[in-house]
C-alpha cells in the first residue's frame, strides 16, 4: 500500500517535472523575428516628430511643476515645527485672514492656470499641424483589421492595378500615405510609434490616418486595442523604401503568382489547392480566391508570417501550418495535418511565391 502510494507520488512528481520542462522547452519554441523600430520618441516622420516636440515641451513643464510641488512638501516638512502627541490644536487661524498662505496659494494656482493654458494652446496647435500635413501626391492604401492580422489593399489607376497583401505595409519614403481604416470583426487600432499616433479601426465606420516616412527603414506596428485571444501577436511592419524600389515592389505585387517550375513546387500547388487552405486564403492566378485570411500571392516576398509572429522561413512555415495553435493559441487558422512529403512540397510551393 505504502509502496504503491510512493510509486504514484513519484510518477506524479516525474510527470510534473516533465510537464514543466516541456513548458520551458515550449517557451523556447518561437523563433524571434527581427522587429523594426518601435519607439514613440525615435521618430522617422513629420507626424511623430511634431508629437515628439509637443512631448518635450509638456514633459519639461510637467517635470518643473512636479519638482516645485515636491520642493513645497519638503520645505513644509523642514519649516514647520514638530508637535507633541498631546499638543492642543492651534486655533489662531479661525476668523483670521492668513495673508501669507493665502497669497502663496493664489499665486501657485495662478501660475498653474497659465502653464495649463500654454499646454492647451500647444496641444491644439500641434493637433492642427498634424491635420494639415500636405497630402499632395499621396499613396492611398485600404487597411482592414481582422482577428488577428492586417489586410492591406493597394489601389491603382485601373482596377487591375489593385492588389492585396498582408501584414507588411510598403510605402515610399517622402511621399504622404493615406490609410483608409476599416475593421472586419472587432475594434482594432493601427499604431506605428515611430511614424504616427494611433487610430482605431471600428466595425461599421471608416477612419483615415495620414503620415509620411522621411527615412527609409523598417518600422514595427502593433494592434493597440484589445481584440481578443491574439491581441498580443497582431503586429505588422511598415517598410519605407526609396521611390524606385517601392515602384518595383508595386509592379511585382501586381503580377499574379508565379507558376511553379520544379516538380516539388508543382506538387505543393496541388496540395494547396486540394486542401482546406483554399477555404480562407487566396493566391492570384490560381483558383484559390477566398478572402478570410491573408493573401498568399506573394507570400515569399514577406519577411514574417502570422502577423509578425514568426520569421518567414521553411522550417517555421511548416511548423506554423502543422500547428498554428502552438504559436498563436486561439488563432482562427486550423491545424493542417499533412504527410511529411506533402508538407515539404507545400512549403516549397509557398516559398516560391516571390
Amino acid at each position, binding site marked *: 500500500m505504502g509502496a504503491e502510494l510512493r510509486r504514484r507520488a513519484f510518477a506524479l512528481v516525474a510527470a510534473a517535472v516533465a510537464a514543466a520542462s516541456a513548458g520551458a522547452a515550449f517557451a523556447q519554441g518561437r523563433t524571434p523575428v527581427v522587429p523594426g523600430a518601435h519607439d514613440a520618441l525615435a521618430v522617422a516622420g513629420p507626424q511623430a516628430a511634431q508629437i515628439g516636440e509637443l512631448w518635450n515641451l509638456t514633459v519639461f513643464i510637467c517635470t518643473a*511643476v512636479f519638482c516645485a510641488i515636491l520642493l513645497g512638501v519638503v520645505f513644509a516638512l523642514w519649516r514647520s515645527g514638530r508637535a507633541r502627541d498631546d499638543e492642543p490644536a492651534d486655533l489662531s487661524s479661525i476668523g483670521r485672514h492668513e495673508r501669507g498662505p493665502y497669497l502663496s496659494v493664489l499665486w501657485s494656482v495662478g501660475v498653474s492656470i497659465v502653464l495649463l493654458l500654454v499646454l492647451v494652446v500647444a496641444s491644439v496647435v500641434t493637433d492642427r499641424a498634424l491635420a494639415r500635413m500636405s497630402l499632395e501626391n499621396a499613396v492611398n492604401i485600404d487597411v482592414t483589421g481582422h482577428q488577428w492580422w492586417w489586410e492591406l489593399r493597394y489601389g491603382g489607376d485601373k482596377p487591375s492595378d489593385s492588389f492585396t497583401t498582408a501584414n507588411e505595409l510598403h510605402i515610399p519614403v517622402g511621399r504622404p500615405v493615406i490609410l483608409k481604416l476599416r475593421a472586419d470583426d472587432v475594434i482594432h487600432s493601427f499604431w506605428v510609434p515611430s511614424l504616427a*499616433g494611433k487610430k482605431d479601426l471600428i466595425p461599421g465606420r471608416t477612419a483615415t490616418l495620414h503620415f509620411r516616412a522621411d527615412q527609409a527603414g523598417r518600422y514595427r506596428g502593433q494592434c493597440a486595442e484589445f481584440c481578443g485571444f491574439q491581441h498580443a501577436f497582431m503586429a505588422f511592419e511598415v517598410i519605407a523604401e526609396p521611390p524606385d524600389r517601392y515602384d518595383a515592389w508595386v509592379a511585382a505585387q501586381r503580377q499574379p503568382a508565379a507558376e511553379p517550375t520544379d516538380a516539388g513546387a508543382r506538387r505543393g500547388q496541388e496540395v494547396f489547392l486540394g486542401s482546406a487552405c483554399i477555404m480562407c486564403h487566396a493566391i492570384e492566378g490560381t483558383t484559390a480566391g477566398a478572402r478570410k485570411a491573408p493573401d498568399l500571392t506573394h507570400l515569399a516576398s514577406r519577411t514574417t508570417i502570422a502577423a509578425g509572429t514568426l520569421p518567414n522561413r521553411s522550417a517555421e512555415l511548416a511548423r506554423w501550418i502543422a500547428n498554428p495553435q502552438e504559436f498563436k493559441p486561439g488563432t482562427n487558422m486550423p491545424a493542417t495535418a499533412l504527410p511529411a512529403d506533402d508538407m515539404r512540397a507545400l512549403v516549397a510551393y509557398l516559398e516560391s511565391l516571390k
Partner: protein
Amino acid sequence: MTVSGTASPPRLNSVPPSAEDAAALERTWRDPPGLLGWLAAINHKEIGKRFIVTAFGFFVAGGLLAAAMRLQLAQPDNRLIGPDLYNQIFTMHGTTMMFLFAVPVMQAMSIYLVPLMIGSRSVAFPRMNAYGYWIYLFGGLMLFVAFALNIGPDAGWFSYVPLAGPDYSPGKRVDFWAQMITFTELSALIEAVILITGVLKLRAPGMTLNRIPLFVWGMLVTAFMVMFAMPAVMLASTALITDRLVATHFYNPAEGGDAILWQHLFWFFGHPEVYLIFIPGLGFMSAIIPTFARRPIFGYSAMVLSLIATAFLAFGLWVHHMFATNLPELGKSFFTAVSMMIAIPSAVQIFCWLATLWTGKLVFKTPLLFTFAFFFVLVLGGMTGIILASVPLDLQVHDTYFVVAHLHYVLIGGAVFPLFGAFYYWFPKITGRMLSERLGRWNFWLFLIGFNVTFFPMHMLGLQGMPRRVYTYGAEMGWSNLNALASLGALTIAISMLLFVINVWRSLRHGAVAGPNPWNAGTLEWSTPSPPPACNFEAIPVVGGRDPLWEPGGVRGHVAGLAVDSRELLMTTVLDAEPETRESFPEPTIWPFVGAVATTVFFIGSIFTPWAIVWGSVPVAIALTAWFWPKRRENTAHLALERAP
C-alpha cells in the same frame, strides 16, 4: 424590542445621560444576537465593518490576480498563462478593483464614519443599507464563482463591443460581467441615496453646511456623482446583455446599432468613476492632514468648492478615452481643455494642504506618512494625466503601458495611499486598538518603493511601443528587463500588503488601547468611545464649529428629549442643521437579506433565461412586501412618541 405596550409612556433621555439611559439606548440600538440576528443586522457600524472587510477581501483577490499577471509578464514568451486565462485574469483584475473594491470601499468607509462624523445615530434607511451590502457581496461572489468555473469575463473591464457582443464572445462569460455591473451599480446607487439623505438631514444641530467635515463633503459630492454617472453604465450594460440574450442590436452596426455608442455610455460613467474613487481619497487627506498638523484646514471654502468643481468637470471629459476613434478633431480639443482644467481644482486642494502643513506643527504618525505618498504619487500621475489629455500625445501613448502606469499612479496615489492612511487613522475608532506604528512604517515604505518600482518602468514600456492587455511579448521587442523589474516591484507591494494584514491581525489582539481620541482630533467621531456604542452618541452633541472637539470647552451641549427605548433620530434642516423633527427608525429585520437573495436569484437567473425576469420577480416582490409591512406594535410606539414629545 423594549417597548412593552401602549400603556407605558416613552422614556426620553436626559442631559447628561444617566447610566440607565445609556443601558436603554444600548438595548434599543444593538443588533439582535444569534445567526438570524447576524443576518438581520442593520446597525451602520456592523454593516460598515462587513462592507470594509469584504471590499478589502476583493482588493486582496484583485491584487493576487495582478500578481499572476506580473508573474506571466516577468519574462518574454512565457507560457505559464495562456491568452484564454490571461484575458480572464486582466478582466477580473480591472473589474474587481474598479467595481468591487475602489468605489465600494469608499462607500463602506463612509457608511461607518459619516454618521459618527455628523453626530447621528444611524445612516438614513438602515434596512436599505443592509440590502445594499448583501447585493454587493452576492454580486462579487457571483463574479468570482464564475471565474473559478472558467466562465469569468474575458473582454476587459470596459467590455468594448463588438468584442463583448454575441458574435465575438459567445458563451456566458460577458453576461456574468454585465450582471455584476447590475449588482454593484444597484448597491452603489442605494448607498448614494443613503449618504445624501443622511448628510443633508441627520446632522447634529449646529453643524451647518459650512461646518461639515471635508471628508463628509467629499462623500456627499461623490454620492451625487454616483447618482448621475451610474445610470449610464447600467443602461449600457443592460443594452449589452439584451443584445446578447434577446438580440436587440443596440451595438450591432450591421443592424443600425453603433459600436461607438457603447464607448460614449461607458466612459460617460467611466471617467466620473475615476473621480468617485479620487474624491473620497481627497476627503481622507483633508481629515488626516489637519489632525497631524495640529490646526484647522487652510481654505475650507476653497476646498469644498474645488470638490464640487471637480465633480462637475468630471462629467465633461469622457471623450479623452476615445481620442483614437474617428470623432471630429475640433470636438476632441474641447475635451482636451476640460481634461486639463480639472487639474485646477486639484491644484487648489494640493496647495491648501501644503499651506496647512506649512503653517502647522506636525506629529509624524503613519497616517500622515501615507498622505505624503499622495503628494509624490498622485501628483506624478496628474502630470502624466496632463500628457494624456492632449490629443496628439494621447494618440501615441493611448492603450499602451504608459496608460497602465498613469492610471495606477492616479488611483493608487489618489485613493489607495490615502485609504491606507485612513485605515491607520480610524482603525483605533473602529476596533478600540491602535495599529503598530513600526509595522505601519514598514508597510508604508515597502508599498511606496514597491509601487514605484512596479509602475514607473511602465511609462517607458509604453513609449517603447508595448500595448496594454497583451498576455505575452517577444524577447526580440526589448521589453524584458523593464517587465522583470516591474514584477519585482509587484512582489514588494505584496510583501507590504502582507505586513498590513499581520499588523491588523496582531493589533486586534495586542494593540495599545486607543481611548476615545488617540490623535487629539477635532471631529465628532472622536468624542465617543472606541469602538462606539450601538447608538453612537449617548446624547446627540450640539456643534459650534468645524472642529467641535477643538473648540474651547468642546462640544456646545447635548440634545435632550429623544426616546431611549425606541429608535428615534433628530432630523435637522438642510442648510443650517436646525432641529426640525424627530423620526422613528426601523428595527432590524431579516427581510433585506431575504430580498437580496431573491434579487440575486432574479439577476443570475436572467443570465440564462429571460423568463427569470418573470418568475424571479415573484420572490423579490414577496420579500419587499414583507420588508415594508407595518407592525402594529411599532406603530403604537411611534404614535406614543408623536403625541408626547
